[in-house]
């Protein structure tokens, strides 16, 4: 039932209203609203009950194993969430004087420093509000760099075919054309294609490493030389940073600029779609272009850096300083891990991924890159099962839900047919992974014995398989009272 269907004219949760004031207002009638917006009129109990019940229809990390590849669904520490709700942080206005914001600014500054350390970069701005905005900022900095040098003919960004959709979309949003290059059968980028692609038109290349295929691009140093030689810069998509945290640094690989997904690697909650955090980190050359504001420390006090300090900045990306509460949470998580904990993230994320891969392989599943080590994630392809048993990756994914596991990422990267991208993260135990593998094995058996069970899955959720085509064709995007 929709909340609107519970609404009763003139019902209200008055204890939440401010007291009524009978004085007149001097606003001309033409500027006033005449009708009431369609908001529900319900009691506080009805609201609490409705949304509590709705929440129970979700899968989440707190209730299920959620091996969604590329999304790093690790445990989101509750302590961190709770501490972000301290009144001093929660009721603090973003435009307070610096002298009244030292607490928050010290956190911001520390996170900048920590991210410099883990990325091997020279400058960090925390303002981008998610990975994609970080990408935008990064590419905009690449552009600003070339323009500052009068190198204005560069109008192309190179993107591997395995890249996440935000990479080309971000490049375009910065006014670039996108050139795609193919991946080889081993999961590495085709070096010939790269060499052929670069040229005086190349502004830069966007990569992740390990790539979205779950394998480490071994010739990264060579690639960086190729691109740099051509005058381009290298962008690192930090969505996969969890795989290498404390083990390898993008700065050392030759990248000039990158973003970090705080909501992945730094364990801030995904919130059913967001918020995220997409700080950008840059090498020496791009430091002047970092988006503002940033925090600097001068003699024990913190101060916001703005356009006056950073005349070459690409500018602001948000009204204030980005997702402040996410910055706080990420900093707290980093402080909990500390130097000893940081590299364990990559180690155990990798251990978990390789463990599932090994077990699935033994059970008869086909890895997309069988010759490769898994990074923190890996791909299996159900191409063969699709052909022989007429079931799809989608069917397997939906059936997994019945077993109480969230499905892996499906059909991404696009170049691998019928693929599932599986990322367990470091916070799951061997026992959970074993149960997941058991479910996969059982589903494979079901695919043989009773494929309809898969095709009509899920069976145990609040709804059965939903008609997405109808949704897109007969748009029903808002409720209308009848």
């Amino acid at each position, binding site marked *: 039932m929709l909340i609107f269907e519970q609404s009763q004219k003139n019902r209200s949760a008055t204890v*939440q209203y401010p007291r009524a004031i009978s004085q007149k207002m001097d606003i001309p009638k033409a500027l006033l*609203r005449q009708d009431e917006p369609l908001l529900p009129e319900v009691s506080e109990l009805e609201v609490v009950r409705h949304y509590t019940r709705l929440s129970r229809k979700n899968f989440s990390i707190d209730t299920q194993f959620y091996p969604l590849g590329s999304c790093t669904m690790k445990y989101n520490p509750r302590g961190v969430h709770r501490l972000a709700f301290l009144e001093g942080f929660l*009721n603090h206005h973003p435009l*307070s004087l610096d002298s009244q*914001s030292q607490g928050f600014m010290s956190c911001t500054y520390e996170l900048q420093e920590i991210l410099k350390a883990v990325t091997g970069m020279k400058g960090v701005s925390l303002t981008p509000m998610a990975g994609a905005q970080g990408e935008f900022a990064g590419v905009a900095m690449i552009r600003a760099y070339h323009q500052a040098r009068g190198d204005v003919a560069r109008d192309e960004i190179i993107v591997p075919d395995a890249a996440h959709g935000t990479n080309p979309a971000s490049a375009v949003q910065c006014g670039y054309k996108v050139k795609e290059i193919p991946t080889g059968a081993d999961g590495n980028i085709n070096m010939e294609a790269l060499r052929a692609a670069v040229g005086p038109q190349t502004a830069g290349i966007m990569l992740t490493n390990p790539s979205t295929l779950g394998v480490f691009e071994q010739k990264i140093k060579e690639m960086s030389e190729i691109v740099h030689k051509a005058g381009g810069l290298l962008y690192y998509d930090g969505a996969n940073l969890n795989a290498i945290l404390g083990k390898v640094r993008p700065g050392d690989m030759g990248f000039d600029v990158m973003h970090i997904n705080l909501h992945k690697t730094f364990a801030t909650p995904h*919130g059913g779609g967001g918020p995220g955090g997409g700080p950008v980190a840059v090498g020496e050359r791009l430091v002047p272009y970092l988006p503002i504001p940033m925090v600097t420390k001068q003699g024990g006090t913190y101060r916001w850096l703005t356009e006056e300090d950073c005349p070459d900045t690409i500018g602001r990306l948000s009204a204030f300083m980005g997702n402040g509460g996410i910055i706080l949470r990420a900093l707290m998580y980093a402080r909990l891990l500390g*130097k000893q904990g940081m590299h364990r993230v990559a180690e155990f994320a990798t251990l978990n991924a390789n463990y599932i891969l090994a077990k699935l392989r033994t059970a008869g599943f086909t890895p997309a890159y069988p010759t490769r080590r898994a990074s923190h994630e890996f791909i299996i392809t159900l191409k063969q099962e699709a052909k022989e048993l007429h079931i799809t990756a989608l069917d397997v994914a939906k059936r997994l839900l019945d077993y109480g596991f969230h499905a892996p990422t499906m059909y991404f990267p696009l170049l691998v047919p019928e693929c599932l991208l599986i990322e367990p993260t470091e916070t799951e135990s061997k026992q959970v992974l074993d149960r997941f593998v058991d479910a996969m094995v059982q589903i494979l058996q079901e695919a043989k014995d009773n494929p309809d069970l898969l095709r009509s899955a899920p069976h145990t959720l609040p709804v059965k398989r939903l008609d997405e085509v109808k949704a897109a064709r007969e748009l029903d995007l808002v409720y209308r009272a009848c």
Partner: protein
Amino acid sequence: MPFIPHTEKDIKDMLSTIGVAKIEDLFDEIPANLRIKELPAIPEGLTEMELARLMRERAEQDLSALCFIGAGAYEHHIPAAVWEVTSRGEFLTAYTPYQAEASQGTLQLLYEYQTMMASLMALDVSNASLYDGASALAEAILMAVRANRQTKSQRILIPQTVHPHYRHVVKTIVGQQGIEIVEVPFDPKTGTTTLAILQKMAGEAAAFVIPQPNFFGALEDVDALTDWAHQQKALVIGVVNPLAMSLLKAPGEWGQTGADIACGEGQPLGVPLASGGPYYGFLCCKKDIVRQLPGRIVGRTVDTDGKQGFVLTLQAREQHIRRAKATSNICTNQGLLVTASTIYMSLMGPKGLKRIAEACYHAAHELREKVKTIPGVEVAFTGPSFHEMVLRLPKPVDAVLDELAKYRIQGGLSLQKTYPQIENGLLVCATETKTSQDINEYVEKLKLALNHASHASHNEKKTVTIKAEGV
């Protein structure tokens, strides 16, 4: 090992299943010369107990007694139920609802949100959120340029009564695509955009932005502005305070045919100030341009039994499908804040929301009347306003704010840098959270501060030039 559950035995068993001797071997594809051994710059790990103590100390530094700053982020009463329910693990730790059947909670909530927000804007559809108000305005402009079928103009008109940071963000984002941004000056008497000024700006434009209330808290003549803009073939983008729309005419009702797009900052609807974020941007539009709307959109459909259910829809607009041709690069949005807002709007309902808007109005107007009695303090603009206003002080604003800070009062936002033409301009806000007592306290302390503040504009910050010193 914080948050890592593996026992020694687990590790041994897992390594042997994989067939390697030690964890380090799993990184054998990574060139050895790239590997690092330690991260000396990172501090020692803390326990949660230690962290809690540290954070308490820091948070305490930022506590103030009374805050009269608005300027795009507003202090409101947020019912406890809002975040109690929003913080449930099932909302907090879910991902974007790609697996619809396992995400009906989030999806139905978003559908309800879209309904509420579209209705609040008097428009047909809403997306499921963008990052914040400023970036939403940038997206709205990009959308308008794509959607405007009447003109090929790449010219955008933005009044200077739009939040300076919003204009800045628009420049950063929209500027990359060669779109021309023209700023419209304001009438120095009313602090609003007038037809008289616009006359000089006539000509085709892709879009015209109308803030309501504007940055100064003043109310724009939205009907006239909308009709004027439509005459220039521009699409009209309202950038509005959503809470105020319970009281003020909503964008979809502006002028003859209504604004085409509405966007803004969702923070006033149940999102705490939180030092500046996470907030969320909302974006609504008329039905005919929905395919240009960026961001997630939820649609209602049915399952194989014909039972109602919800899915992400129109995904062909999005980066994960359309890649370089997507309407936007946005992926992760601000879902959790929308969750809070939806619960907030449900609790308040149409009447509660309006009551809050009225209370804000009255608090601000009480403040206005009372500060006016202080010798030398003037209200900068005439004309109707909502819950914010610009004061002109007889002393340098920054000095006065520093004085007020001594009483733990955040006195407002200095406009010295952003609007130097308003001499000693101070933007002040009062919402429903401010009692008459608070307002009296403000007025009294402002008097004292004005007495104590020096006449010289002090507080000049030493700037760093990034090129020279690095961040």
